[in-house]
């Protein structure tokens, strides 16, 4: 017995020593020396994705769309003006800490390092915005992140185009006002905001509060804690409040649960409007027919009916629509991932026109983002005519004016049910500038003078 015990002890000791020593030495040799060398003529783009965890239902289609467009550029055109795109996914489960770890891991890859980062998470964006000027890597938070960063004078390295949460909140109020037959009819109405209790969900609150004072509606705030699987109490409160309108500001599993709970209290779906991150196929399908009539915001068209989709289907999937559908082809969030990649590649193209057709640094791509002018004609050339409005970025304005469109779920498809709604720039822009000025003061940043920029 003593012998066996001793043997066990001895073996366990050796095993532990081996595990620790082996692990550390391998990790040290590889990570310290950096990962494998890459070809000198590649433009590296890090892809922060979440294909696992409670946010995977939304993370997967968005990641697939982004990936497909980069693959298309490489396979069809051989890259951007001969510069091949190199990209690597890093899984972070929508966990801010892991997201930052991914960023740190990928930021020095490729011949010029990461040239741009799209976190697809407001939490990670908040982490990266202060680091961007230090690391010289621009952040593109497309329709998410820190709205105040739309002021390019204080946040030269952060881009929020084509639109932001504050713009969207004001557009929602405009839409609801129109539904009520005029903005003056909003007085005395009750609007409930059901939101993810995180920076993401809290973003629209200041705008909705300012507008509540202006227009006279009552705003009720109902936070839902991460990950949002438990919302019974929230929706019972809604049944008690009996709001005229409810805005849903959720992400991941929270969205499907919200729609199911709304159905459970027989809430009128026509009076429920979701943020653009709460209105995709993966959110409504689990709720079944109960979700019919539910509306949500967007900044691009749903569906796979654009010439670009045909090219992707032919080039990447060999025309196999079933295989493409497996990869969420044409879903709302797939299209959003696609659009994100279009913005990235067009910014790189813009920068290449100035700096030459070679792999660009983050600073050079930043110039490309700031001088991006995606016109109607250019969108048509890309096979995206009418997919999204044209956008033009300036030194002051990193948001680009951002109109919002409303789409509705009919049980099978998302359909556009509104015109492009211009956000209330007169309300939103001063708020952005005030928030940016406050940030600048807290962090000792001197806003740059845009007349000096070239």
């Amino acid at each position, binding site marked *: 017995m003593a012998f066996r015990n001793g043997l*066990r*002890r*001895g073996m*366990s*000791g*050796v*095993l*532990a*020593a081996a*595990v620790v020593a082996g*692990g550390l030495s*391998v*990790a040290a040799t*590889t*990570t*310290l020396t*950096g*990962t*494998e060398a890459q070809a000198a003529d590649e433009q590296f783009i890090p892809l922060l*994705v979440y*294909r*696992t965890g409670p946010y*995977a239902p939304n993370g*997967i289609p968005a990641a697939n769309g982004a990936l497909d467009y980069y693959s298309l550029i490489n396979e069809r055109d051989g890259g951007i003006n001969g510069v091949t795109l190199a990209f690597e*996914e*890093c*899984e972070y*489960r929508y966990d*801010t*800490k892991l997201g*930052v*770890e991914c960023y*740190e*891991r990928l930021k*020095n890859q490729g011949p010029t390092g990461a040239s741009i980062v799209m976190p697809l998470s*407001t*939490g990670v964006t*908040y*982490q990266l915005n*202060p*680091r961007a*000027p*230090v690391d010289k890597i621009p952040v593109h938070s497309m329709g998410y992140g*820190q709205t105040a960063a739309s002021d390019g004078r204080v946040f030269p390295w952060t881009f929020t185009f084509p639109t932001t949460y504050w713009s969207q909140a004001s557009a929602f109020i405009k839409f609801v006002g129109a539904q009520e037959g005029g903005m003056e009819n909003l007085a005395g109405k009750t609007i409930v905001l059901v939101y993810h*209790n*995180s*920076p993401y969900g*809290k*973003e629209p*609150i*200041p705008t909705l509060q300012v507008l509540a004072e202006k227009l006279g509606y009552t705003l009720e705030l109902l*936070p839902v804690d*991460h990950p949002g699987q438990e919302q019974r109490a929230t929706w019972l409160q809604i049944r008690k409040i009996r709001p005229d309108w409810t805005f849903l500001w959720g992400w991941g599993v929270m969205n499907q649960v919200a729609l199911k709970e709304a159905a459970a209290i027989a809430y009128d779906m026509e009076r429920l409007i979701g943020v653009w991150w709460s209105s995709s196929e993966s959110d409504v399908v689990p709720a079944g027919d109960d979700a019919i009539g539910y509306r949500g915001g967007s900044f691009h068209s749903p569906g796979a009916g654009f010439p670009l989709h045909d090219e992707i289907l032919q080039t990447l999937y060999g025309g196999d629509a079933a295989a493409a559908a497996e990869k969420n082809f044409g879903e709302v969030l797939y299209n959003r991932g696609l659009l994100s990649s279009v913005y990235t590649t067009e910014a790189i193209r813009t920068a290449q026109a100035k700096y030459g057709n070679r792999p660009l640094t983050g600073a050079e791509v930043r110039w490309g983002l700031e001088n991006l002018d995606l016109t109607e004609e250019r969108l048509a050339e890309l096979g995206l005519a009418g997919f999204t409005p044209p956008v033009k970025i300036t030194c002051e304005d990193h948001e680009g004016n951002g109109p919002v469109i409303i789409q509705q779920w009919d049980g099978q498809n998302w359909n556009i049910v509104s015109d492009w709604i211009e956000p209330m720039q007169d309300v939103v822009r001063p708020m952005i500038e005030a*928030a940016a000025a406050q940030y600048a003061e*807290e*962090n*000792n940043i001197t806003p740059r003078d845009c007349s000096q920029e070239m």
Partner: protein
Amino acid sequence: MTVLTYITDLYNTFFATRSRAINTVFVTVISLLALFAVPTLANEYWLQAILIPFLIFALAALGLNLLTGFAGQLSLGTGGFMAVGAYSAFKMTTAWPELDIIAVFLISGFFAAGVGILFGLPSLRIKGFYLAVATLAAQFFLIWLFNRVPWFYNDNPSGTITAPPRTFAGVMITGPEAAAEVRYLVALVLLAVFVFFSWNLMRSRFGRAWMAVRDMDVAAEIVGIPLLRTKLLAFGVSSYLCGVAGALFVFLYLGSAETIAFDVNISFLVLFMIIVGGLGSITGSIIGAAFITILPIFLTNLNPILGIDLAVDLAKHIEVIIFGGLIIVILILEPHGMARLIQVSRERLRI
């Protein structure tokens, strides 16, 4: 020189080993490496993504180990106590920007200690799992509080707290422009100070009283140890360390944070660290923190190293399986944690 011999002496007692000379060399080499070689050799990824969180979690694990491993009070409120440290540090440094940031870190621990003592009060009546539930309530209450009351995050519209740029002796140590090397060194020095403090504390009257209470509180009371004071002191000291760790977590590692950064997962993670590392062992806290923070990152990097091209989601699932499996294997091989494993293997190898 005397300090060094003293450290080595403590180290010797702790490991109960045979050769003092080897230990003196060992401690000197490790200290020199950690202080000078690591910051110069390691790249930013290693410092920022691996070493800094490791040091901070080691401090939090040390704090919890004092309470759970030495004083025998099971706590699931670590995340909440860390949040108290982080938010009080944030409030202090934004209210009085001229206050030295290191002082802010050290003072913020006292707020956490106060809250810890408050939530430690039920420990006089309830034990074990029931106490764990009471501290779990602290966790949820504190996070709820920091999320609900805008005063704690200075009415920031998104509810995040951001570490403002602050200097110590002319060197930037917080904020986006602080070099990773500097932040690493600050975390390292603070951890070293607290490890030294804990080692001494455990060999003092208080530490022995904690262990007596852990082993049998009725007996401890009969020999004249005041349970109230002893248990509350354990909660206070433990929460102090967790609070400082929480402040460092935001100021040196994350840069900005929301309450979700301190959710109940952090409490579990720190508890796993001390269970895997070794309950009632100061070295165990550090080894456990290393295991839990570094292993997942190591596993993530393993695929590219081995040249296996897996889809990221599959790789993540496999990583979680391996991670869980390894914890089970270690706990079956050595229920007293990795600190004991290492001690035993050292004895086997006669070093």
